[in-house]
Each structure stands twice: as structure tokens, then as C-alpha cells.
């Protein structure tokens, strides 16, 4: 009877192993990390004990890039991944295939998890890392370690502080939202009433920069207009809906709400619809999706600042490839932004910008 | 109507039933006697389709049957009334009875009127008057048990097994039960009656089958079997006296003194227990005995009066305080209040000793000496003859009698001065009962003060120096040696 239990436990253990093994088969495609030359799996006793034992593969045997996003749920990062995979596909043949591995913590507040991901990438010995940091400082030391170990690191979307990676490629959130704020002030406000900000958190620089930028934009034109302050939404649509109701109750003279990401914007729209105050409030936001575009057509959203997530992935990967080749790149470059308004939303430029988020978008899709 | 022919069953290398053969006729009550582990429950599980026999045949009305599931047995007309009640308190009596029938039929529409009529019919057959439209939860446990019986009668079984039905019943309720069983017998049903109480067997059964070690030791008329012989066949040895001889060890020193002590349903009571004395507390269920004792040990709060231990006034806020003062309470409810059934025997035995910081096991910092602890629990296991593999065996796997031994052992190990036994022989077999009586008298000999609550008057008479009787919350009488059951019954 004990023998039976042992057999059962072995069977279960083996099936776990087999399951994981077979999943490996369908999980990896293209060149896998099968490099015997650089394959040092021996436990090494390094001086500081922090050096990884595995060196990245030599070029020509296939490259592995880790894309470490801020969270596993937002479609923004999937656009980044798509861009990265496209670049990998285009350039891959020269290098024996480039594999893009995509990881992210469940929530963008789990800075420790993201730190782990950088450390694991170092253990794995990848060739390059494309990372959008959840926090400007938490992954810093690990990124430096990675670079010391010969891994190329490009930081996208949000700043690392201090910027000790090989390169930064992201939107200047401050400028982007200042432009947005100015546009709104010019076209929709007259200095009376108040405005509020819905931010997804106060941890990541992206969120903080956009917030600061927007306020700068408004106050540049109407310095005396009342700012009722920010609310933290944690990118939760339901939560944001409730927060809108609270803010409006407290400030009946509310004229404008700024949402600094797509989820937050959706929550704001819901909130306004529930309160029935669509006409009274000017809504503007960062990022886009089909629902937000439809709302723009209907007139409930005044303007959207669009980033270039696809480009961040695409160009970011190309920069990594250049670095692997030993070429120099610009240390810091702006991935660009586009101010989308109801007036320009059907122009070719606008459509291209929207396609950064929604692959194959056509103006008919949002009608 | 029922015949077992050469039934055998083994679990791995353990032969539990060996060549069981006997018959039970219609309109007959057959008592199935035997110690725990003799094979009674295994045989019943085979008859109700839970187990399958390895060899032999079962005939019902002359035809061989093979039960592979409980529903097979059910369909063949075999019913069983368990000790454990399965009651849905907020549904009515009728709904409870009917629900138990419809378990397998998912979309069966329950016609309320028909439900009520059919249920009332069943109770009529049993000779029981009951309002079937009241929620079952409003009735007492013994009435709920009658409902259990109704559930099995509803299906019109040919044979009904009663598994230790009187354990939780008062005398009056037991009488009612016997009336019902008699009614069923008159209707022509076959009844297999399992009980530990010998008097009940003699009272109700026509025939008797005695099992021991998986074999039939006797099969014949009940009244042709001498009581001593019955016990002999059951336990394989001669038990000269069921109750130990009473020598008085009573001292002058008072251990517990209650003055005007009471609360809740218990009126202010006076009670004194001396060292070396065994005092019995008789009374009906609901008379307030357990309630009184729970206040003594601090499990519930008392409203008036005082309690003195060793002549000093004490405040007991919880059973922990009681233990500190040297009072042990052996709970009536083993499963829920007396034992940690999911833990090992050793864990259970050692707990009060650890709480009391028994010096040889627990250091001043609370560190437990595992070796010494193990020695103590092994000692207790041997001295109380707990049948087990080792001290790590989980208590839930022990028989009722062995569980009771553990629940007593744990207190002996803590070396208290005062023992309170609440229904100490409930649901345990004959041999263990006798052993418990020996233990109780042994404690008195060691100079301990003992209080025994029991609803089984003969055992109080047989074990105690003195019997107090409680009725409706008051102590109404006190009897010394030589009291009869009748005396006590009259006063209750």
C-alpha cells in the first residue's frame, strides 16, 4: 500500500516534469538558448558573489531579448511586445534568430517582482533587456549589474533614476502632457471653474510626469484656475468611476478631468455618464483604445495624447541589436507623441499614431 | 427472510469476518452482540451495500443478492437507522422525511399534501403522535431519532438495522423507542438490533447472535443465553462481577464544597465531595447536571453561591483555572469537547500536563522534553490498555472505547486531585466499561475526589459511595449505599 502511494507520487512528479517539458516545446520557438560555447552551468564562487556564471551567447547563434513591462494586463505593453517581435522578425535572420521573451508583474506596483525579473534575466544570460520600470529607482542596481555582465539594457517609456542604462527611449511625459494641457486650456476652458486629475499611481515616473506636465499646461494659460487635486485610480475602471462621483460632488464647478492612462480614462467616462454630466466636463487623457476613440467621435473626449508603444518596442529592439553589434546609439531619444483631437483624428498621421495601439486600425472602426 | 451463508471479509491481511452464517426471520428482533472490533459494523456495512463480501452469500427471501452500492441495498428493502442524526432543522418533519427519499431523483415534484399524508401514515404505523408540519429543529434529539426511524420506514423496508439507538435517550424515550420497535415487529419487519446494553437485548430480542473475532460464537434464542455466558462469549473471558467491589476510601478531608451555587437552569445547590469519595450525580437529561458541572469548572459563569476547594474560596474563570486548582473534567462529548480527534494519541494525552507545566515534561521556559513526553504517553497507553499502533496514531481512528480511555488518560497524566466524569461509559463496549469502573474506584483508593454524572443508574449504584439526584435544576435527594434503581427513578 505504501508502494502504491510512492508510485502515485512518482507518477505525479513525473507528469509535472513532463508537462513542463512539453510546454517548453511549445513555449520556445526560433533559436533557443542552446549555446554550448558559453554554457557554464558550474557553480562558481565569484569574488563578490554577484557575478552571474553565464555569459551571453556570441552573435550568430541566436539572440534572446527580455521585454520586461510594467504590468501583465494592460494592452499598451502588448503593443510594445508586438513592435519588438516585428523588429526581431525583420532582423532575425542575420543573427540566427532573435527570440523575444515577454514578462511583467501582475500589478505595476509590485516593484519587487520586476526587480526579480531583471535578476532572473541576468541568471538566464539574455543578450538584451527592454524594460519599462515600475519605479525609477528599484531596478537600478540590478540593471547596472546586468550591464556589467554584458547584457544590453534599454529603458523605455519611463525614466530610470539615475539613468545608468545603455539608453533611454521613451515619451517625455512632461512635454506631452503640457502640450495636452495647453490645447485643452486654449480650446475648451475660460479660466473659470476647476479641474481634477485622475492618476494611476504616484510611484512611476510616467504617472508623475504626466500629472506635472498637464498642470503646467493649464497653469501656463490660466494660472488662477482652481486645481482640486489628484486621485489615485490604480488603473481600476470601477474605482475610477466612484472617484469621479466623489470629486464632482465635492466640486460642482468642475470643468475638466485629466486621466493619465487608458483604463483611468474609461473609468472617467463611465463616471461622467452615470452622473449625466457629459456636456459639462471636458475630458482628456493619455493613450487610446477603441472605446475612447468612439467617445471622441461622440464628443465626450476632447483630446488624447498618444505615445508610440509599438515604436518603443520596434525601435527599442533595433537599438538593442545595434548595441549587440557594438555600434553606438543615442543615449536618450524621444519616442514621440501625437496629440489626437476630433479635428485631426481621420488624418493619415493620426491613423498611423492610433495604429501604434491598435494593429490595422481604420477610421471606420471607431464609427 | 435474511440469511448469511459463510460470509467472509478481509482488509489486506486482516481477516475481519470468518464464515458468518445465521438467519433472521420476518417479525423477529435479532440482537447482534459483540465487542467493538468483533465485526458487527463490517457485517452491517456489507448488508447495506457499503462493502462487498470476499466470500459467502447473502439471501433475501431465499434469493441471492449482490449489493454493490447503498442504493442496491435500499432497493432490496434493507434500511438502517444510525446513531448519528442527519437533521435539517429548519425544514418540517414531513419535508425531512420525504427529502431523504428523493435524493436520487432530481426533478421529482414534491406534492405537499401527499408529503404530509404519507408522513403522517408512517408515524401512525409507529404509534407515534407528532405534528409533521413543525420544523424538525423544534423537537428534541430523541424525537429527531424517531424521525430517523420514520425515514427508513417510509420506504417500506423488509429489514431494519438499529445501530446503538438508545445511547442518547432518557429512560422514557427509550421506552417509546421500544414500543415503536415492537410495532414494527408486529408488522412483520425483521429487525437487527445492535446495542451494548445487555438488559435491552434481553428485553427486546427474540434471537441473539454473538460475534467475537469475526466468528459467530452463538446463534439461538435470546432467553436461552445466560447473561454471564453472554458476556463470556463476547469478551472471551469470565467477568465475575461487572461492577467492582466497593470498599470505602472516604476521608474526612473535603475537596470540593459548593454553597448556594448555581445559575441558569441550576438553582442554588449545596454539594460536598471528600477525598477518597466517589459521588454520583443522577438525573434526567435536562436536570441540570452538566450545567452545574460546567459552572464548577468555569466553562460557564455561575450567578450565585460560592465554591471552595480544599476549604478555600476560589474564583474559577475558565477550565484553565480549574486545572490549576487540580480539577479535571472528562467531557461527555468526546468528539467535540473531549478530544482532538485529528491529532495523535500522544498529543491528546499530554495536553493538560503541558498546560499544567508538568515538571518532568515541560521546562520553566516552556520547552518540551520530547523523550520524557513520549515516555509518559506510552505509560498511559499501556496502563489504560489503549489498543493502538503507537502514540502518533490519530485519535479519530480509534474505537469508541479506546477513545474514551484516551480522554481519561489525558487527565490522569496531569495528576489532578478532583475528577469529574460526565457520562464516562457512553457508547463504549462492555469490557471497557468494566475497566472504567475499575479506574474510578482506583482513583478513590488513591485518595482522589470523584464526581460521576451518569444517566445509567445501575452504574452509579455500582460505582459510587453516594448518589445525589438532580431534578429540574435542584438536588432533590441524596442516597448512600444500598439504594435501588427504583428509589432513584422515583425521585427524578
Amino acid at each position, binding site marked *: *500500500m505504501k508502494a502504491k*502511494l*510512492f508510485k502515485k*507520487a512518482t507518477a*505525479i*512528479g513525473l507528469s*509535472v*516534469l513532463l508537462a*513542463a517539458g512539453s*510546454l*517548453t516545446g511549445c*513555449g*520556445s520557438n526560433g533559436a*533557443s*538558448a542552446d549555446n554550448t560555447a558559453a*554554457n557554464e*552551468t558550474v*557553480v562558481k*564562487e565569484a*569574488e563578490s*558573489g554577484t*557575478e552571474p*556564471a553565464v555569459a551571453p551567447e556570441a552573435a550568430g547563434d541566436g539572440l534572446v531579448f527580455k521585454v520586461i513591462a510594467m504590468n501583465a494586463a494592460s494592452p499598451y505593453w502588448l503593443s510594445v511586445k508586438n513592435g519588438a517581435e516585428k523588429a526581431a522578425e525583420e532582423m532575425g535572420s542575420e543573427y540566427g534568430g532573435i527570440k523575444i521573451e515577454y*514578462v*511583467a508583474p501582475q500589478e505595476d*506596483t*509590485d*516593484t519587487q517582482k520586476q*526587480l*526579480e525579473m531583471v*535578476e*532572473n*534575466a*541576468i*541568471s*538566464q*544570460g539574455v543578450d538584451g533587456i527592454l524594460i519599462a520600470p515600475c519605479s525609477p*529607482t528599484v531596478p537600478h542596481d540590478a540593471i547596472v549589474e546586468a550591464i556589467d555582465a554584458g547584457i544590453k539594457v534599454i529603458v523605455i517609456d519611463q525614466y530610470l533614476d539615475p539613468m545608468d542604462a545603455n539608453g533611454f527611449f521613451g515619451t517625455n511625459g512632461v512635454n506631452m502632457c503640457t502640450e495636452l494641457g495647453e490645447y485643452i486650456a486654449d480650446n475648451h476652458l475660460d479660466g473659470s471653474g476647476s479641474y481634477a486629475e485622475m492618476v494611476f*499611481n504616484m*510611484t512611476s515616473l510616467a504617472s508623475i510626469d504626466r500629472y506635472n506636465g498637464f498642470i503646467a499646461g493649464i497653469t501656463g494659460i490660466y494660472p488662477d484656475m482652481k486645481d482640486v487635486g489628484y486621485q489615485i485610480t*490604480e488603473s481600476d475602471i470601477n474605482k475610477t468611476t466612484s472617484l469621479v462621483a466623489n470629486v464632482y460632488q465635492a466640486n460642482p464647478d468642475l470643468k475638466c478631468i485629466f486621466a493619465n492612462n487608458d483604463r483611468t480614462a474609461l473609468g472617467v467616462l463611465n463616471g461622467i455618464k452615470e452622473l449625466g454630466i457629459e456636456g459639462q466636463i471636458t475630458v482628456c487623457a493619455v493613450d487610446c483604445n477603441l472605446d475612447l476613440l468612439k467617445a471622441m467621435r461622440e464628443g465626450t473626449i476632447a483630446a488624447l495624447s498618444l505615445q508610440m508603444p509599438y515604436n518603443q518596442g520596434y525601435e527599442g529592439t533595433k537599438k538593442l541589436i545595434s548595441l549587440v553589434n557594438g555600434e553606438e546609439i543615442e543615449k536618450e531619444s524621444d519616442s514621440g507623441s501625437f496629440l489626437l483631437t476630433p479635428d485631426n483624428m481621420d488624418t493619415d498621421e493620426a491613423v498611423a499614431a492610433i495604429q501604434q495601439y491598435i494593429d490595422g486600425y481604420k477610421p471606420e472602426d471607431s464609427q | 427472510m435474511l440469511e448469511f451463508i459463510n460470509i467472509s471479509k478481509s482488509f489486506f491481511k486482516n481477516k475481519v469476518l470468518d464464515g458468518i452464517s445465521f438467519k433472521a426471520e420476518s417479525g423477529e428482533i435479532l440482537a447482534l452482540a459483540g465487542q467493538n472490533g468483533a465485526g458487527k459494523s463490517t457485517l452491517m456495512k456489507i448488508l447495506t451495500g457499503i462493502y462487498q463480501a470476499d466470500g459467502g452469500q447473502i439471501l433475501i427471501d431465499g434469493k441471492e443478492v449482490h449489493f454493490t452500492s447503498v442504493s442496491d441495498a435500499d432497493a432490496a428493502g434493507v434500511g438502517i437507522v444510525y446513531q448519528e442524526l442527519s437533521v435539517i432543522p429548519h425544514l418540517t418533519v414531513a419535508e425531512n422525511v420525504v427529502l431523504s427519499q428523493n435524493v436520487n431523483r432530481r426533478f421529482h415534484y414534491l406534492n405537499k399534501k401527499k408529503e404530509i399524508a404519507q408522513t403522517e401514515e408512517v408515524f401512525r404505523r409507529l404509534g407515534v403522535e407528532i405534528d409533521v408540519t413543525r420544523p424538525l429543529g423544534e423537537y428534541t434529539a430523541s424525537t429527531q431519532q424517531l424521525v430517523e426511524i420514520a425515514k427508513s420506514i417510509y420506504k417500506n423496508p423488509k429489514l431494519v438495522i438499529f445501530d446503538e439507538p438508545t445511547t442518547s435517550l432518557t429512560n422514557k424515550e427509550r421506552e417509546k423507542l421500544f414500543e415503536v420497535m415492537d410495532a414494527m415487529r408486529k408488522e412483520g419487519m425483521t429487525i437487527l438490533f445492535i446495542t451494548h446494553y445487555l438488559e435491552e437485548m434481553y428485553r427486546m430480542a427474540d434471537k441473539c447472535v454473538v460475534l467475537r473475532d469475526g466468528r459467530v460464537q452463538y446463534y439461538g434464542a435470546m432467553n436461552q443465553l445466560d447473561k454471564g455466558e453472554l458476556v463470556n462469549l463476547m469478551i472471551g473471558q469470565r467477568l465475575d462481577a461487572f461492577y467492582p467491589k466497593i470498599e470505602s476510601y472516604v476521608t474526612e478531608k473535603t475537596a470540593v464544597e459548593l454553597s448556594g451555587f448555581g445559575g441558569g437552569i441550576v438553582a442554588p445547590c449545596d454539594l460536598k465531595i471528600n477525598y477518597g469519595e466517589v459521588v454520583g450525580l443522577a438525573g434526567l437529561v435536562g436536570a441540570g447536571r452538566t450545567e452545574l458541572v460546567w459552572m464548577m469548572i468555569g*466553562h460557564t459563569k455561575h450567578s450565585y453561591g460560592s465554591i471552595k476547594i480544599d476549604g478555600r474560596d476560589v474564583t474559577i474563570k475558565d*477550565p*484553565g483555572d480549574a*486545572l490549576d486548582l487540580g480539577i479535571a473534567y472528562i467531557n461527555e462529548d468526546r468528539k467535540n469537547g473531549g478530544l*482532538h480527534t*485529528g*491529532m495523535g494519541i500522544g*498529543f491528546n494525552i*499530554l*495536553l493538560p500536563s*503541558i*498546560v499544567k507545566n508538568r515538571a518532568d515534561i515541560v521546562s520553566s*521556559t516552556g520547552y*518540551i522534553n520530547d523523550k520524557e513526553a513520549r515516555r509518559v504517553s506510552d505509560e498511559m*497507553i499501556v496502563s489504560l*490498555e489503549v489498543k493502538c*499502533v*503507537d502514540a502518533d*496514531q490519530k485519535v479519530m481512528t480509534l474505537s469508541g472505547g479506546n477513545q474514551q480511555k484516551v480522554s481519561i488518560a489525558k487527565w490522569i497524566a496531569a495528576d489532578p486531585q478532583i475528577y469529574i466524569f460526565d457520562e464516562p461509559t457512553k457508547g463504549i463496549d462492555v469490557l471497557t466499561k468494566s475497566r472504567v469502573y475499575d479506574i474510578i474506584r482506583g482513583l478513590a483508593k488513591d485518595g482522589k475526589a470523584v464526581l460521576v454524572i451518569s444517566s445509567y443508574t445501575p452504574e452509579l449504584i455500582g460505582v459510587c459511595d453516594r448518589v445525589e439526584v438532580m431534578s429540574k435544576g435542584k438536588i432533590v435527594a441524596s442516597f448512600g449505599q444500598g439504594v435501588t434503581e427504583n428509589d432513584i427513578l422515583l425521585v427524578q
Partner: protein
Amino acid sequence: MNTPVVKEKGSMFKKVLGNQISVVFFILIALIIFFSVGAKGFFSAYNLKSLLQQTAVIGIITVAQTFVIITSGIDLSQGAIIGLTTLIASGMMVDLGLPIGVAVLAALLAAVLVGVVNGFFVAHVGLPAFITTLGTQYIIRSIALLAKGGNDIYNLPPEISNFGRGTIGGVFPNLAIIMIVIVVIMHLILKKFSFGRYVYACGSNVTAARFSGVKTKKAIFLVYVLAGFLCGIAGIVMMCRINAGIAVCGDGYEMNSICAVVIGGGSLFGGEGSISGALIGAFIMSVLSTGLQIMGFSTYWQQLITGIVLILAVMVDTIRRRRSQGME
């Protein structure tokens, strides 16, 4: 006549596979071997050190959760306590300029206070642990967010990150050592001291425990206070890891500690569980996460596989449990 205690000469298998700890240990070793072979870079000094550091925070709160779950309770406020602790400690150092020792002590005190609140409501008032600790989770999280308006605290004294990345003898991470010390001490308390017995007694059957003389309210209260304290330490460890005070960090970590305890043989019904089993459970989860990442799996696959392993481990535990009961 005495019935001798029958000592069955149990087979080795019974000893080894008779308890969940051995089973999960076997699973852990199997996983480590599997990843060492299949994931280049897994079996390296750097990665093993990484693993220890990565498991430190979860490992410590898993120890706390073990105590709580054995009493048939649950502590959902663990993650919130971690966040609060990092914030208080950081705030004291950065905003108030207090010495590190004082800041750490103040943060630990706050964590203990949360434990006291939890313990009071669960043990003395008698509220269900699930609701109570869920309530404290929300309250503590909100307090942490209100304290700095949701902002994070950076620019901690360099000693913090140095300690966080530091090692003993160049090999063993400081943070892992803290975890190991806590594990060893708590394991001893649970198994070898009377308090541990009271914990099991309360969880297995609180009524029987009370009747046996155990001061059940006191014991359960202390369990939650201890849990709060340990989560406070976990919070300090977290702060050393991320070198910041972030109110929302640790969010959801209690789910992982509950998983770990259950994988290790703990029962949500109480009365069962062990620290060694739970710790192995915590390592199984972090080994899986790291190993799969190094093999190149995306986050979505990791979640799936971790879920499967959790179910398998609990299945094995349930089967084993049923077997041992059916044996008699």
C-alpha cells in the same frame, strides 16, 4: 493483563511519504533538478543567491501565515503591513531624519499594533478572521496611502540598500539569513514549546482545547500579534530589497503565503501545518517562477503552471490524508 503497545515496523516509504513535508521536498528537488538541466543559468551561484533573496520576504510572511492557519484562522492583512512598514521606516529616516534603528523599531511597533488589533477582534470579540484581516488590510493600506498622498519615499540612507544587497562571506545574502533565522526560531517554538502545542490545540478543536485547560483566547491573540510582528520584519526586508518606501508594495502577497502553507500540508480547517512544509511550499513557488522565466516562458504561462502545481500538491496531500484515515 497488559496489552502491549504494538509497534509496527513501518516501511521506509511510510515514513518518507507518510507526510506532506517529504512529498513537497521531493517535488522541490525534482523541480530544481529539472530547471538546472533544462534552464541554462539556473544552477549558478548568482541565481541561487537571487532565489534566496527573492524568497526572503514571502518566506517570512509564510512563517507567520503558518501559525495563523494552524489556528484555523487566516491573515489577509500581511501585504498591507509590509507596505505600511516600508513607508513608516522610510518616512522616519528620510523625512524626519531619525536614525535607522529608531525608524525600524517604530515600523515594527506599528506592525505589532496591527497584529494586536487583528488578535483582539478575532480572539476576544470572536469575529471571523477572514473579515477582520480583510478589514485591517483595507484600513492599513489606506492609512499608508494617506500618509504620503500615495507618493513613494526615496533617497534612503545607503546602509539600507547595502544591507539589502549584502552577503555574509560573499555568498549568503543578509536578507536570506534573516529569513532562515526566523524560520529556525519559529519552527522550534511551534514544535518544541508549549505555545506551539496550544496553537495546534486551538486549531484542531478550540472547544476541546478550552476544556483541556488551554487559555485559548490568549493563545489565539498572541498568534496574530506574532504574525503582525513577523510581517513587520518582512516589511523591513522588503524595504532593504527595493530601497524605497512604497505604500502599495506587497499588495496581494498574502495570497502567496496562503498557497505556500497549503502546499506544505497546512489545512484551512486548522490543526495541521508545519513551518518546514510551508517554507518548502514558498520555495517551490519561487523556483517555479524563476525557472520558468529563465526558460523563456511568458508571465501568463508561469501563472498557469504555478496554479497546476498548487492543485497537484494539494491533491497529493488530500489523497495521503484519506489513505491514513482509511487505514484504520
